């Protein structure tokens, strides 16, 4: 009997090892992929092609948030990548990740196309951010920003989300929420400062 249990234990041990998931703290974080924008700034077509494949989903998602018509979305995507060609030299790796910069360029181009700002629906601030759940290192800024925003109070969250997603000015937010302009500026400054520190340090501060 002992030999049978021993035999079962010995033969199952490798299987147990295989099914036990490794501890998260033993995982080694994959390194950030080499930035493509500096090569694109030099006219590297191969780097641009790789950029389209790597961030095509991101640009497409942002364009669909701003625009409804499929043809407009496609035109906007082409314009965004053309704008990346021209502004690739402005990317500063010390200030943020490539994905955040591309999101910034896309947001600017789409804000120019948007004739009626403030019409886009706000995402649910309490819901888990989609990118935040991604394990991709290229979205490390996004995860840090999401964590910092979740640490803000409701008023700060709402003001920052209206500015970030709907492109509203402080004055427009003040009128929309029927609160004083000074209060809006105060909420925004405190909340965005928390996010900026999180981007620099790479973790949310409570």
């Amino acid at each position, binding site marked *: 009997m002992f030999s049978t249990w021993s035999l079962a234990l010995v033969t199952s041990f490798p299987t147990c090892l295989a099914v036990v998931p490794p501890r998260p703290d033993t995982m080694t974080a994959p390194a950030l992929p080499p930035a493509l924008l500096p090569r694109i700034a030099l*006219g590297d*077509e191969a780097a*641009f*092609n790789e950029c*389209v*494949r790597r961030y*095509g*989903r*991101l*640009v*497409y*998602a*942002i364009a669909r*948030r701003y625009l409804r018509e499929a043809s407009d979305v*496609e035109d906007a*995507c*082409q314009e965004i*990548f*053309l704008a990346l*060609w*021209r*502004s690739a030299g*402005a990317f500063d790796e010390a*200030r*943020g990740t490539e*994905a*955040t*910069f591309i*999101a*910034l*360029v896309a*947001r600017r181009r789409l804000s120019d196309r948007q004739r009626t700002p403030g019409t886009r629906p706000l*995402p649910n601030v309490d819901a888990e*951010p*989609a*990118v*935040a759940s*991604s394990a991709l290192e290229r*979205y490390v*800024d*996004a*995860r*840090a*920003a*999401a964590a910092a*925003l979740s640490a803000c109070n409701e008023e700060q969250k709402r003001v*920052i*989300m209206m*500015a*970030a*997603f709907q492109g509203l000015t402080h004055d427009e937010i003040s009128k929309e929420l029927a609160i004083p302009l000074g209060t809006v500026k105060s909420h925004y400054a405190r909340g*965005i400062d928390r*996010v*900026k520190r999180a*981007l620099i340090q790479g973790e949310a501060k409570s």
Partner: protein
Amino acid sequence: MKYDDDELAEAAILLAHEDVSQDMPPALQEQILAQASAAAAEVRFTTTKGAAVVVEEPLEEPTPRRSVVRTWGGWFAAAACVAFAVYHWRVHTLEPSTTTAAARPSASAASPREIALEAASGGRIGSVRWDAASSTWVVAVGGLGRTAEDEHYRVWLSSTDAEHATAVGSFSCSGDCGERTFSIGSDVSVDSVRRVWVTRGPRIDPVSAPLAGRIVAEGSVEPPP
């Protein structure tokens, strides 16, 4: 392109809430990749919108024909001005006496400066002398009688005798002449003058014969040794 940290933070927040699970349509991706070459060329070779610069062969500019008048006429005009200025300077500054047809007589050191005039009735009545400063004969006479309206006194000079006398000027006296001094321009060389006459007779111009009229006074000078 410039951006601040606030805009970057907003972009990170936007990024955090995007659903990146959906792929870009393949046709759209292909279309974006297809325009990569054109976009690369536009970024590399131009800083402004527009077509690429086309270098053309530089046109050979035709050599302009040079006008002879414009190139040499000015030199000719300048040379003419210079020549005229030199001529004017030489004529009026260096040799003022060259304006007359004949050379003015110039007195040498040995030539007589003054010739005394003796009246026919006797006694000195004046003199004829050469004034080098004005290059004229200065006649000084006195005591001659009044002349009629159709007559006058004439001065004659000669280097030899009366047949070769040359009239050098004339004057008249409405009353007693008294002391009179006047200048007479003449081309007769002062160096050759030996004899002087003063005649009185009718006004005849030009003079047809030497010493026409009545001799009222005369003078002579010895030739230089």
